[in-house]
């Protein structure tokens, strides 16, 4: 019978297992390994710097709160997308993203280039209650983050691990991570206050401030802060 060749596999579990392992390995080897060795798959853009200590803290909060369940960070090369969100996403822009945050569902708008689109104070109000800015929004409010002081106990450790994984931080940046984060936090809080909002001491050092610092960096990877 034509399928006799398969009989040995059906009675020899080791052979069946080895052939199965081979079948599932090939696709992965072809798709996953070459990109690491191909020139130009992902080079940092000229002048691009990794996230500052505060921005990295904000990014990690973005993961914790699951912002990526509703927001993509990947603008496709389609006219309707570049018109709405700005230039399409380049591989080089995400070389300091661990993990990547392209997203798979756009319940809210793409955020890949949201940096600089609004003042810090806009974000402050928006996180406090999105419906004060956009009554039809279904984004949850994140008012609780404004009452949580940002935990800086792991800040330099974060940069240390990222440096170990290949991000270009200097020893000095790692050593000064907390002071650096404090300074950037003060700058963000000042810009919010300048727009007439009152922030108490907790609010001015809260998780929301770090999140805003991160968002303002999106799409602006090559600019000094």
């Amino acid at each position: 019978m034509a399928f006799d060749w398969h009989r040995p596999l059906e009675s020899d579990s080791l052979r069946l297992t080895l052939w199965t392992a081979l079948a599932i390995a090939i696709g992965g080897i072809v798709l996953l390994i070459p990109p690491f060795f191909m020139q130009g798959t992902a080079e940092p853009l000229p002048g691009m710097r990794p996230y500052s200590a505060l921005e990295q803290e904000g990014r990690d909060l973005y993961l914790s709160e699951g912002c990526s369940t509703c927001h993509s960070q990947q603008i496709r090369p389609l006219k309707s997308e570049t018109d709405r969100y700005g230039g399409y996403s380049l591989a080089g822009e995400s070389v300091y993203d661990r993990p990547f945050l392209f997203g798979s569902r756009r319940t809210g708008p793409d955020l890949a280039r949201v940096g600089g689109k609004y003042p810090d104070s806009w974000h402050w109000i928006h996180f406090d209650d999105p419906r004060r800015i956009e009554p039809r929004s279904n984004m949850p409010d994140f008012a609780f983050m404004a009452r949580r002081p940002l935990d800086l106990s792991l800040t330099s450790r974060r940069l240390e691990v990222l440096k170990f994984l290949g991000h270009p931080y200097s020893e000095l940046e790692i050593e000064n991570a907390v002071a650096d984060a404090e300074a950037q936090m003060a700058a963000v809080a000042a810009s919010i206050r300048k727009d007439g909002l009152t922030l108490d001491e907790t609010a001015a050092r809260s998780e929301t401030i770090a999140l805003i610092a991160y968002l303002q960096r999106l799409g602006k990877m090559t600019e000094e802060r």
Partner: protein
Amino acid sequence: MQEAEAQSPYDMAVVRGFALSALVWGTVGMLVGLLAAIQLAWPEWNVGPYLHFGRIRPVHTNAVIFGFTLGVVFAGSYYGIQRLCRVRMFSDTLSRINLWGWNAIIVAAAVSLLSGYSTSKEYAELEWPIDLALAVVWIVYAVNVFGTIARRRERALYAAIWFWIATVLTIAMLHVVNSAAWPVSWMKSYSAYAGIYDANIQWWYGHNAVGFLLTTPILGLMYYFLPRQAGRPIFSHRLSILHFWSLIFIYIWAGPHHLIYSPLPDWAQTFGAAFSIMLIFPSWGGMLNGLLTLRGAWHKVRTDPILKMFAVGLTFYGMSTFEGPMMALRTVNSLSHFTNWTIGHVHSGALGWVGLTCFGTLYYMIPRLWHTELYSRRLADVHFWLATLGIVLYITPMWVSGVTQGLMWRAANPDGSLTYTFIETVAAIQVYDAIRVSGGVLYLTGMFVMLYNVWRTVAQGTSEVPEPSRTPPDAELSAVAGGQ
């Protein structure tokens, strides 16, 4: 056949444990899914730090995939492998570690995700200590399965076992590679890969999680339980062989269809799309092998709720494996990607194929595990209809909503400017989000009907069995293996 099983020498305690835990996680996971659906339609339902959509959604996906679906897969494979090999599981201790370890992991997953510990990589959100535990428990399962197969008293390995072997191997490989990370603290780590490399590996993982958690092990359940419930051998052994090897080989290549129009190199995107199209054939091979097994038994399907679940489950499998390849075409994906169309596709597979097949499996096993009859076939029938109606009310609005929003995003005025602001496209789909909630309510009501039915069945049955001495041949195995 039931008498033979009543004096079973097999370890059924682990099967009972996983069957019950799957019912619990299924109920919890779908309740959470319903909450997520409500939050999208009515955002006031988001509460505080722990119960807002961003944290709830991964709890839903983890509970239904790892708690419910895999719970049924563990139960069904422990049930089937022992009978197909005609030997008790390799080690009762490993079975216990598998049962309790796995459920502890799901608890840890739910608690840690709600507390904000998440890597954000879809279906791989868990932080590194839980990932390590998961790997260990998976290896325990693997040793137990291979140990049992090595000691088997039946020479031939039946198709269901091939699919379970493929599941064990592939999930181990995917999990270890994709979860590689460097710890920052006890509950925080950074991915070993960055940017586009991370994306490539994550969707190799993510797509094959669909392939080897929501497809191959479920096909294993179908291959084992459907022929037994129908009392007929599987339609074609050759078709089993052809579609098994082509399915597992092709699946691995299709991951990049999640990254179409992304900065991933074009050649990889092309591979992803091309292999997605090819994937229709082995997928439909499996569907046809299942449906054609029912030929000559359709009169039974009309009256038997379990067969109805398998038959309609297979039909949804066919539907979503036709839809998937279409969505992998660049033109279609440019519209469907990022919209509720994907969510509709996901749930036609998840609620239709995975859900109904798992329900059918549980209804088959539970009376046998407690040595009694099902308390009520009528209620099982009611469950079937509630679930089916729920699926329709879930996926139809998602398709309409996905296409509506996709078209609105790209709509342009004569002068070339965009017609709609983003928020207008959010407001336009609110009504569909609301209809989806009613679908979820129906599906979940079916789940509660099942809980009641199972509770009554367990109450009237017994798990005590006199310790028997020999392993009876699986009553229908000879007939099954004889099928061509």
